[in-house]
């Protein structure tokens, strides 16, 4: 699938499926046959509306959810079959930054303990003093200071909490970080701070990011490649430049057209592609293309055959019968 050299591939996801049973006859197909690859040091953005399965996809990829079918290979090893020491090493290398900085930090722990917990679990340092030094160093890297280490989480603002979350993720020297909407709960002026921090850390440490968000302009800014998800399927995947200059899938075009542009003249003149209606339910989806109900170009073929991701230009993959 989306081609990168095998030697550099960190993560390989093939035909991943994650279904949730909803009673006797209903199945919620949150992720349905998604494949992609990621190489070391790159950022793959996944965008889509809420309910499209992007978070479930991310969580299944790092083994927080069991898969229904398919394979996820991290450095050639099956994530869902790991056990014992192998699994422990994996959880050290792969970390996650959560969406809600209010709910994802333990209110009863001090920042010190939150950031240091992983280091204790993985026995990375022999003495508490070393851990303490490392915590100070991490806080410094994410733009907090030493005094913050002895405070509780409720004393911080949203942006500062997100920095604590990032420090916690960095504590274990990870190679791969899953960023699940890390900025959507923050104010515009703080969003730029966090994005700048993530970009800087990636450049310094060569981190690999799987960046999940619904804000397309932010995703474009931070990602090398972007995948667009709709109702559990990947409908388009390409480099971020190509996606924004030459979007192919009708859904991608509509998504791009919905981004508000902070420029009144451009806004007044541009023709929006308005999608009518909402995202349909992912419970027992009808066969064929998932987007057919809202697609302006839908034809008879779309309800019969499910389109598969195929290459229409170098490194540009689309799942649509139009191409």
């Amino acid at each position, binding site marked *: 699938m989306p081609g990168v050299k095998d030697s550099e591939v960190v993560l390989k996801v093939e035909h991943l499926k994650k279904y949730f049973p909803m009673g006797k006859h209903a199945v919620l197909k949150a992720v349905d046959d998604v494949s992609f690859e990621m190489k070391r040091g790159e950022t793959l953005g996944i965008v889509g509306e809420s309910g499209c399965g992007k978070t479930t996809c991310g969580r299944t990829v790092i083994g927080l959810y069991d898969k229904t079918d398919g394979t996820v290979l991290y450095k050639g090893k099956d994530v869902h079959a790991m056990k014992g020491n192998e699994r422990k090493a994996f959880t050290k290398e792969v970390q996650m930054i959560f969406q809600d900085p209010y709910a994802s930090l333990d209110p009863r722990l001090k920042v010190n303990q939150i950031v240091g917990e992983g280091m204790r679990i993985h026995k990375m340092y022999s003495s508490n003093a070393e851990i303490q030094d490392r915590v100070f160093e991490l806080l410094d890297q994410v733009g907090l200071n030493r005094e913050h280490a002895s405070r509780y989480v409720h004393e911080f603002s949203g942006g500062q909490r997100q920095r604590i979350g990032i420090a916690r993720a960095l504590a274990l020297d990870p190679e791969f970080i899953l960023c699940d909407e890390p900025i959507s709960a923050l*104010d*515009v002026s*703080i969003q730029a701070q966090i*994005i700048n921090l993530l*970009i800087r850390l990636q450049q310094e440490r060569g981190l690999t990011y799987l960046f999940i968000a619904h804000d397309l*302009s932010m995703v474009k800014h931070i990602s090398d490649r972007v995948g667009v998800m709709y109702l559990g399927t990947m409908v388009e995947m390409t480099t971020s430049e190509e996606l924004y200059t030459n979007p192919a899938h009708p859904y991608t075009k509509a998504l791009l*057209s919905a981004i*508000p542009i*902070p420029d009144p003249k451009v806004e007044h003149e541009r023709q929006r592609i308005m999608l009518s209606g*909402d995202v349909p339910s992912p419970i027992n989806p009808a066969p064929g293309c998932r987007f057919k109900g809202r697609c302006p170009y839908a034809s008879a073929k779309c309800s019969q055959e499910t389109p598969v991701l195929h290459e229409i230009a170098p490194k540009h993959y689309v799942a649509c019968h139009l191409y």
Partner: protein
Amino acid sequence: MEQLLKVENLRVSYHSYAGEVQSVRGVSFEVNKGETVAVVGESGCGKSVTSKAIMGLIQCPPGEIKEGSHIYFENQDLLSFQEKQWEKYRGAECSMIFQDALTSLNPTMNIGNQIIENITNHKNVTKLEAKKEAIRLLELVGIPEPAARIKQYPHELSGGMRQRVMIAIALACNPKLLIADEPTTALDVTIQAQIIDLIKQLQQKLGTSVILITHDLGVVADIAHRIVVMYSGKVVEQGSSEDIFYRPKHPYTWALLKAVPRLDLQNKQQLVSIEGMPPDLITPPVGCPFAERCPHTMKICQTTPPPTYHFEDGHEASCWLHHPQCRKENLPFVAGGGQECQE
């Protein structure tokens, strides 16, 4: 243009255990008939409190509207209203759309009854007429099969649909002013575009004045005629949409515009970020509230609040950089040339 609403030196405080939080500290702006005014600012800057004050929804205590504040609606001072007058005004003259439609709608009432309730409260009509009106309103806000939907409950609807129902309830009595408090923050981009488009269409069709409260400047570019930028309880800049987007006169506005990554920007370039955090409003800074985060801060900014400078077409900004004696070097925008007006 005829003036509909005038907020004059509005000051609102909340009393908490930690002390008095001065959420709104002297806000003045106007809304003309048929105009859309966007109030932009980050969380905690007092934009929602301002809108609640206009609706008479500030709970006292713990809230307190300070002496010397005035809100004129068609030349009547709202702050002198008795509860009976407020009841007549709310819903009929001025109504509000809230951010979170699920918690603002009544979960135990079907959506039809929630619209009918508003109509029968203010107009002398029969239940049947009100029901017909409710169906017409649902159709107006773009809900398919309104006659069947009227019996549904909020939990049966999607986020975008709920927000449409909220708009239908708000418009039930043809209000002169519609306040939309972050109506699209909880929605996806495609649905956000639909809702903003709907508000714009309705505004043109019905001639309602709209106050749109948001933290995202991008959202308002298409819809706002005028923009009021708030920071830590004060208006730092206001002017026409073109003035704010193309000729910002305050470093905060300029940074807000730059903090949003534009699609034509180079990938992974560092964004212009506003370092630090907004000040604590229990002990607000004596000088300019933005001084601590401002890259162009001067000595005077720390000690004296800046005067408001008036430029052409009602464009005004409160910043010392426009003072004639200030050196105007390395500024990202054109400073100076305004008329000083110290309150």
